[in-house]
């Protein structure tokens, strides 16, 4: 008998499963759990889920292999990857392999809820059929999260992806880093607060030194959603290792499943 849940959590650590069930349950999200990859795949086949939260490091199957299988098995169910061994490589690989989000452990209640909320919104959009993942030509995207565009001067613009912004809801505020800081691919480069006071992390598509910050976002955060690929850019940076990092990105919004 097929059941319907909002969220499937696949993790070999019972305390993580308990914590997610407890926190999400309190927010009215129905949660099903699977203690290992095979149970997860089995459940995903048997029941209907709107979102999957999946651990990368599990004893029986590598998280990325599992991600690939899940995406083939039920392409309409978005997946968020999580791991205790949180590295840049894991973050970038998760997103470039088709996950819609990456949540490093340990996470706070807010971080979990904002990610789950965004995932559920994503799922709703898929089901409604109004998912337009494509970003314009010559834009390089890190999954569904962010984009980078090379300029003729050698600098690059960084921004948040349209789909990412749409899943947040209405943007209330954009928190950018200070201009002295460096941006590193796969790490948080900006936080976007929604009207529901949830903070969503934008993971940088490329690494580089900040040249310029889009100050217009301070006064007019709405521009981010109105023109995400134009006026709504976040930073202008000097790319650091563009050749290598480009390999992790998809061109023109086409998300290639690397697995």
């Amino acid at each position: 008998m097929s059941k319907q849940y909002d969220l499937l959590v696949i993790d070999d650590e019972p305390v993580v499963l308990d914590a997610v069930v407890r926190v999400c349950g309190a927010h009215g999200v129905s949660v099903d759990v699977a203690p290992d990859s095979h149970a997860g795949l089995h459940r995903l086949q048997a029941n209907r889920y709107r979102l999957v939260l999946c651990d990368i490091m599990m004893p029986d199957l590598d998280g990325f292999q599992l991600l690939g299988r899940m995406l083939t098995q039920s392409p309409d169910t978005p997946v968020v990857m999580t791991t205790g061994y949180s590295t840049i490589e894991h973050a970038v690989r998760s997103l470039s392999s088709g996950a819609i989000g990456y949540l490093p452990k340990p996470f706070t209640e807010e971080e979990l809820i904002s990610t789950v909320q965004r995932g559920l919104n994503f799922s709703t959009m898929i089901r409604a059929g109004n998912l337009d993942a494509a970003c314009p030509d010559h834009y390089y995207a890190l999954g569904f999260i962010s984009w980078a565009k090379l300029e003729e001067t050698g600098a690059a613009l960084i921004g948040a992806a349209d789909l990412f912004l749409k899943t947040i809801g209405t943007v209330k505020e954009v928190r950018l880093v200070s201009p002295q800081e460096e941006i590193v691919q796969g790490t948080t480069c900006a936080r976007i607060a929604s009207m529901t006071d949830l903070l969503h992390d934008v993971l940088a598509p490329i690494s580089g030194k900040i040249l310029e910050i889009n100050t217009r976002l301070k006064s007019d955060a709405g521009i981010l959603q109105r023109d995400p690929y134009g006026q709504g850019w976040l930073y202008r940076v000097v790319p650091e290792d563009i050749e290598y990092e480009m390999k992790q990105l998809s061109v023109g919004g086409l998300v290639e499943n690397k697995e």
Partner: protein
Amino acid sequence: MNSKLFRKLGFRLIVVVSITTIVIIGVYSYFSIRTQRAMLLDEVERHANQLSETVRKSTRYGMLVNQREQVHKIINDVGTDPAIHEVRVFNKEGVIIYSSRRENMGHVVDKNAESCYKCHAADRPLERLPDVERTRIFRVHPDSSRILGVIAPIYNEPSCWQGDCHAHSRQQSVLGVLDVTYSLADVDHKIAMSQVELAVFALAAIVAVSLIIIFFVRRWVVVPVDALVAATQQVGSGNLSYRIGEMGDNELGMLARSFNTMTQKLSEARLQLFQSDKMASLGRLAAGVAHELNNPLTGVLTYSSFLLKRANNDPALRSDLEVIVRETTRSREIVKSLLDFARQSVPKKSPANLNQIAERAIAVVEKLPALRGIRIIRQFDESLPEVTVDANQMQQVFTNLLVNAADAIGDKSGTITIGTKLSTLPPYGVARIRKALCPKRHDMMDEECKIDGLPSIRVKSRWNGNEGFIHLDPVYGKRRHEYGYPVPAGKEVEVACPHCGATLIERDVKCPQCGASSFAFEVPPAGKFRACARKDCEWQRWDALEADGKQEYVEVTVSDTGAGIPEEHLGKIFEPFFSTKGQKGTGLGLAVIWGIIDNHNGTIRVQSEVGKGTTFTIRLPLQQR
């Protein structure tokens, strides 16, 4: 024990050479004694023959005229010579007619007696006796001395049978025999003496030769071989820093040097292996810890932050929960930094003023209790231009060097001087080759063999039929090359790529200093590097660099008046996990510094004198090449 002694190479050599000496000297002595004996006897024989002839001739007249007294007188007189045993004459019947020993006169000599035997052995007596057969050697008693006898047959002559006395008839051919016997006691004594002398000489020679051989075999073979054996045992038991002392220029000396080079390479390789192994296990450990720790932390963090949100109306509980959330978040950062440490970060460079960075490092260090009583002197060049560096990494470098300096000073008072300046240096003696390509584009850099801490350039080389590798000094103009096989000074060698064997020699470009051939390789992106192929010729040329003129460097020096670094540690201080601080340090500090400076294309040098202090000099190129 004996078999163990005999298994020793030195002992065997000594035994074999000694036996050879004994055999040679023994054979020589044997033949020498034989010859000497024969010569002495010959001499005596000749003498005896002469005497016999003289006696025969001087008694001839007396016998002819039958003046017996006169013959007696002569024979007696001759017989008084102590060397003469007896002079006698016996007639055909064997009756002794005359004798220097009067008591023997009238006796009959047996035909089988030794003096008659020569003629009477055959049934019919010989009538003529050849000269050589006239002598004989015999002993009267077995224990008496030897005697040489000469018989001279007295032949019948016309005057004997024509005389009035008619004592002898014409038919007789031999009338009697003159027998002179000569004592060989003296000669035998001489022979015995010379035998003893020779034996003594031979013995002395054998002993002397053996001693000389023992001495040199010990010196040239046993001692060096023992040292080599001891060294291999040391290395075998894991002591790779063991070095054999200088052994001279012979084959064993070369073996010792190759052995030293080999163990050095081995220890470097082992260190690198050890280092990467350590880093790898550290990475695995960090990953394991992070993973294992982050899962329980997830439980704590989600539950506590969840509770915090629901404790709005209980301020006391709320502040307690805030502590839990804050501290768990801090734990999260600690685990994250552990993970960051496991992965070495890439420098994030931007133009920065090193004076400011140094100032920040001093500000951090000054608060440390270790710097109480230590004065920090700043010698900053205020007009120092900006350099492109990773400011955080540079601050880490300065902080580490300052803390090291403070540690070197210890509890005493002292000063640390930190200075910056702009220095201009010609590329010669400073610029470093980071990449070397053969004509077929093979990279010839050798990360494993370092010269003064920098990866060297490995080339294949040939000289006089011998082949080996040369590790070239990567610093332009320094020429601290390491020859992997013996090449005498001033010889021109073949130079080729170690991967494909393509020659690097440029026949058409001669060394302007000595006229020998030159070799060249590509140093991307800075053109060709040329050098003379003759060992010890100092000509090198890097045209692209010389064209650029002098290079500008920002130089930072950190000097202390501390304990100094002993000579034997100087070469190792930049190696990972080398530490003299025991439990206090990880041994990573200077290795990390070296890595950072190297990533900035810079160099770091250390000069130190025990008891006086240490100076670290960092040079960073102003223009990035």
